[in-house]
């Protein structure tokens, strides 16, 4: 089983309408490439994400919003800030760095 199988992934941006959806698509690509089947993958706004994040295993956001998740990160939640929200390569590299890919 892949490490991220059955995990819950969340992508956040300011409004939950634009870049978070792009992030979700890029994450999907990485999941497909590595044959990972997360339990859930969705996108939402940062404000919604701040309260919803506790129910997710991994939170992705643009770097600008990383400070919104500092507390969660400090509490051990995996928060992955991205420079380029459309880059599946960056997502893949970040997951690899955290040893979350097999």
């Amino acid at each position: 089983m892949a490490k991220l199988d059955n995990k819950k992934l969340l992508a956040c941006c300011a409004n939950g309408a634009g870049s978070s959806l792009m992030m979700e698509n890029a994450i999907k690509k990485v999941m497909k490439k590595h044959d990972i089947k997360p339990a859930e993958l969705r996108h939402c706004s940062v404000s919604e994400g701040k309260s919803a994040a506790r129910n997710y295993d991994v939170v992705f956001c643009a770097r600008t919003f990383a400070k919104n998740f500092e507390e969660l990160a400090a509490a051990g939640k995996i928060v992955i800030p991205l420079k380029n929200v459309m880059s599946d390569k960056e997502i893949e590299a970040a997951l690899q760095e955290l040893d979350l890919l097999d």
Partner: protein
Amino acid sequence: MGSVFKDIVEKKHYRFIDGEGVTWQEAVRLSAEPLVADGTVSEDYYKQIVACIEKYGPYVVFDHNVAMPHTTENAEGAYKTGIGFMVSDKLIDFGYDEDGEKKEANLFFTLSASNPDEHTDNIMQLSQIFVNDDLLDALQAARTPEDILAAEEKYPCEEE
């Protein structure tokens, strides 16, 4: 999937500007004007986008000098789903991001979203377009609607 650019040209949701001395706030307003013209968005819709960028910084400016100004789905004054496409002959200054990196754009894809499915389709297509460097180069050199269509034809995005 439809074609973003064919739709943009058919609906006249494009414009070309001389970017000399244009602020990013003004640029966002200008890029939304073709959407205002046919009632896709209200005249004031762009102000929500400007407020959002002022609040969160220029995170809507991506690599390759591409900007995707947008607000939330079903924002006030977003009557239809559409993309306001704008090419500026000069880079528009968006200031610096949180890493101190200068953000500039000459391609604008200003979004209005009222229909979730159409909006998702637009975003899916834009995700492809924004990583298609050849296409972006050609669009940055475009000065007529014919140029836009020719660019898309010459550098099509891979189908998923």
